[in-house]
């Protein structure tokens, strides 16, 4: 069936762990690559998962990144343990960032993460409260 989950990959993402940041996205990419997913789609998924992963590292208390594979779509899901996004509409604006100066110096905090996730996904849902943020980005195959 087109809408039944074929496979789920799940990765733990730790808050503030810049050493490991990007690892989960890399693992997702190599898994999808070995499934023979088209390189354009891989690129979009890499951007989405990287931005979602880095947002967990930089802005949250830690969480998980999932990659769900369906017959006709790939869904990247990030869920974390808070503190939540105060104003999602504002956070979606290009250039909006609450990242600290020290993190910005490393090249993060361009405020382009969520806008890029939106740009490169076919469908995006964000739910956020003080207990956590969940992002569901769908890429059609």
């Amino acid at each position, binding site marked *: 069936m087109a809408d039944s989950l074929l496979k789920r990959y799940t990765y733990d993402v730790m808050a503030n762990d*810049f*050493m490991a*940041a*990007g*690892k989960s*996205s*890399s693992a997702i*990419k190599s898994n999808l690559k070995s499934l023979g997913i088209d*390189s354009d789609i891989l*690129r979009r998924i*890499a*951007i989405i998962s*990287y*931005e979602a992963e*880095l947002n967990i590292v930089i802005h949250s208390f830690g969480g998980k990144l999932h990659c769900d594979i369906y017959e006709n779509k790939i869904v990247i899901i990030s869920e974390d343990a808070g503190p939540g996004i105060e104003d999602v509409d504002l956070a979606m604006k290009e250039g909006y960032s609450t990242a600290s100066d020290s993190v910005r110096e*490393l*090249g*993060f905090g*361009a*405020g*382009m*993460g969520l806008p*890029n996730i939106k*740009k*490169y996904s076919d469908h995006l849902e964000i739910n956020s409260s003080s207990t956590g943020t969940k992002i569901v980005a769908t890429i059609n195959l």
Partner: protein
Amino acid sequence: MNCLEFAEKLQLTPLCEKDGNIEIEGVYIGDLLSIVMAKAKKNYAWITIQTHINIVAVAELLELACIIVVENMEVDNDTLLKARELKIPIFKTSESAYQVACRMAELGVK
């Protein structure tokens, strides 16, 4: 032209040369990782002043040809260890991003 031939012509200092034989297919200059993620493409050389370990994650995800660190920025040891592990070539130079880009253009990389 591949990264190593390039590095030699431009007199870049190699910090990690693993897999340096990849042909460079384009160049992107940038220091904000989200923008580099969205703009740089497979087999591009990435010119930056960022030296933090996450540049290697970006290069790995995008399958970049190499990273060229300009303005003589000191590259973190963690970054080099990671680059060697993931086979991401990193070169360094005291020149500016603009100078490197001009020389790359002269050598025919568009």
